[in-house]
């Protein structure tokens, strides 16, 4: 067995082990866990690049846990899709960690720092685990590890984050329970839990009611976790009140990994034959996605809190990815759009949430109407925000443009013209709500406090002691941001532009072709 074939399991196992070691190291020195986590995640990034290289040249890695043969033992499978996602997740976790250093010092009490970094590392371990596993039940365990740590991380801030965190616990547990329920239905029909094995057995029982039930339950369960439109209700509050680091990590990678579960089950377990077996199922998915895109954008326009606006924008952007998946039985470009948008949205939305956190830290602002003249006070952050917002809107030569082009090509290719209209309208709606912010930052004149709502939101610092709010609420540091917070923001913003150019060239096509062939699409781009 080659050394590189051990790398996926090393990444997962070592990050679990690391998390608990960090907790112990925290007793020696409070600053140690952060540096341990950062160093080890750089090491994991290094390993995952080797994994991607191996997958692209030699084919998928299959690792049998403890040497047990797959239908019985747990198998870790890494193909092009996993390796691609693994690199995205690890890179965003690294950038998030760098950003979190000074942000956490500001937002969270000092005695909680050690456990905070432990939980971040544990959540990362859960996300890596979901990414590399090839077993339905093992995926549930990693899913729960990633979710439980996320519940705790959201509640860490205290204050207004508590009620959303509790709602998320309830909704997330129902989602995870529905997922495992569906898996058990499938187990009762096929007697296996391995992806590859189940893919072979399922065609014999496509019409079995247990399989249909299992499919429905898994899809609904994962849709709750990935906040696809009608099931997104827990999400805006969580993203508004969670610590900035946590909401940027959750919006960029946590939800992508949750969605990856759906992607993996669609293509590697049920396969497109199952989707095609039920005529019209793909169009139902497309229309749900279209509803998500439009509803998310429209709600985002109504919001005045920046982070809540970004949260609704995420609902709409998850719709894009789902639309790509729904179009994929008709056109391979749909899957290309979905895969591209997973990366583009992770980069763009991560940057936007980090900007929101930075604005709150330096100036203490949340409400979009207070952003007047911010472009002069925080030039770097506002520039990064503008670039990432352009990427969300889909201005040419930014990352979001490429995925939108792929999706429009897919809808034309599948002759589903309504979705072209949906994509264009959504682009306009994105322009409306992001331009409102950019306009305030750069162009609006300060009109004084004649608007009573504005006056009220200027006041909070004076009445702060009166209410039992968390340590972070309504506070501001007022100092210029440290380099360790600006650097990740600028890195992600420049990635938005670099990716926007790269997607339009031929460079990613070998990767895309590998992903398509690994996900059993009989097509190349």
């Amino acid at each position, binding site marked *: 067995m080659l050394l590189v074939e051990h790398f996926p399991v090393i990444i997962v196992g070592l990050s679990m082990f690391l998390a608990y070691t960090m907790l112990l190291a925290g007793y020696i020195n409070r600053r140690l866990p952060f540096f341990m986590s950062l160093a080890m995640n750089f090491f994991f990034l290094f390993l995952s690049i080797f994994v991607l290289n191996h997958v692209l040249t030699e084919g998928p890695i299959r690792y049998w846990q403890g040497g047990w043969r797959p*239908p*019985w033992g747990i198998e870790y499978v890494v193909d092009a899709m996993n390796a691609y996602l693994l690199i995205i997740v690890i890179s965003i976790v690294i950038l998030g960690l760098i950003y979190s250093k000074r942000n956490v010092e500001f937002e969270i009490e000092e005695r909680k720092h050690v456990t905070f970094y432990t939980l971040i590392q544990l959540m990362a371990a859960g996300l890596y685990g979901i990414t590399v596993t090839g077993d339905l*039940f093992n995926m*549930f*365990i990693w899913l*729960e590890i990633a979710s*439980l740590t996320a*519940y*705790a991380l959201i*509640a860490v801030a*205290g*204050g*207004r984050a*508590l*009620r959303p*965190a*509790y709602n998320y*616990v*309830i909704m997330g*547990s*129902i989602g*995870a*329970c529905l997922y*495992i*329920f569906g898996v*058990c239905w499938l*187990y*009762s*029909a*096929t*007697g296996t839990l391995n992806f590859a094995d189940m893919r072979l*057995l399922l065609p*014999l*029982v496509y019409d*079995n009611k*247990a399989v249909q039930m299992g499919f429905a339950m898994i899809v609904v369960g994962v849709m709750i976790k990935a906040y696809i439109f009608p099931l997104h209700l827990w999400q805006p509050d969580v993203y508004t009140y969670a610590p900035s680091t946590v909401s940027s990590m959750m919006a960029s990678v946590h939800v992508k990994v949750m969605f990856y579960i759906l992607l993996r089950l669609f293509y590697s377990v049920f396969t497109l034959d199952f989707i095609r077996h039920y005529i019209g199922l793909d169009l139902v998915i497309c229309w749900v996605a279209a509803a998500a895109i439009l509803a998310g954008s429209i709600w985002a326009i109504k919001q005045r809190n920046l982070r809540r606006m970004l949260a609704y924008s995420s609902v709409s952007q998850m719709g894009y990815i789902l639309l790509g998946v729904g179009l994929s039985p008709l056109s391979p470009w749909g899957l290309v759009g979905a895969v591209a948008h997973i990366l583009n949205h992770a980069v763009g939305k991560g940057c936007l949430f980090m900007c929101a956190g930075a604005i709150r830290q330096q100036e203490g602002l*949340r409400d979009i109407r207070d952003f007047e003249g911010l472009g002069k006070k925080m030039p770097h952050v506002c520039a990064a925000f503008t670039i990432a917002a352009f990427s969300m809107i889909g201005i040419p030569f930014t990352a979001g443009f490429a995925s939108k082009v792929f999706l429009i090509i897919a809808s034309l290719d599948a002759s589903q013209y309504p979705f072209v209209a949906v994509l264009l309208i959504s682009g306009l709606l994105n322009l409306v709500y992001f331009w409102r912010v950019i306009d305030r930052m750069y162009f609006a004149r300060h009109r004084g406090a004649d608007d009573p709502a504005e006056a*009220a*939101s200027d*006041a*909070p610092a004076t*009445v*702060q002691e*009166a*209410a*039992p*709010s968390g340590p972070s*609420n*309504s506070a501001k540091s007022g100092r210029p941001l440290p380099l360790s917070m600006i650097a990740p923001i600028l890195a992600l913003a420049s990635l938005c532009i670099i990716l926007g150019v790269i997607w339009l060239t031929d460079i990613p096509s070998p990767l895309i072709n590998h992903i398509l062939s690994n996900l059993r699409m009989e097509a190349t781009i």
Partner: protein
Amino acid sequence: MMEWIVQHFLEKYNFWIAMFIIIIGLTATIVKKNFLKKLIGLSIFQTAFFLWVVSLGDVGRDILTSWGLKTQTPPILWMQAAEKGYIYANPLPHVLMLTGIVVSAATTAVALAIVIRIYQKYGTIEEDEIIEKEMEFERRGVL
């Protein structure tokens, strides 16, 4: 008619009972406004689900399926078991649910910890009252 009832209800009574409890738990989770009652509902939901899965592995039961091992035997030793004429219960659902119980205990612990924090902050665990208090904070300009 009688046969139909026997086939779909009486022979599968364990699934019906489990499903009934699952619905009770899920209803409590969604309908109740008290955070602790919600959590109790969630626990009922999860436990009933474990009951459902464990009963999948019952000895010699021909379950739901048109495919797979009809008489339940352990998937690893089933050759030896068949030679000696033994029938075992399928251990896999039990093992899965052992893990599931651990996960559910962890979920309950996290949720209870958050409920305690909520009680410390708001002095109540009724959702309506908490939302009212939040509105009041917002009116006073304390986000």
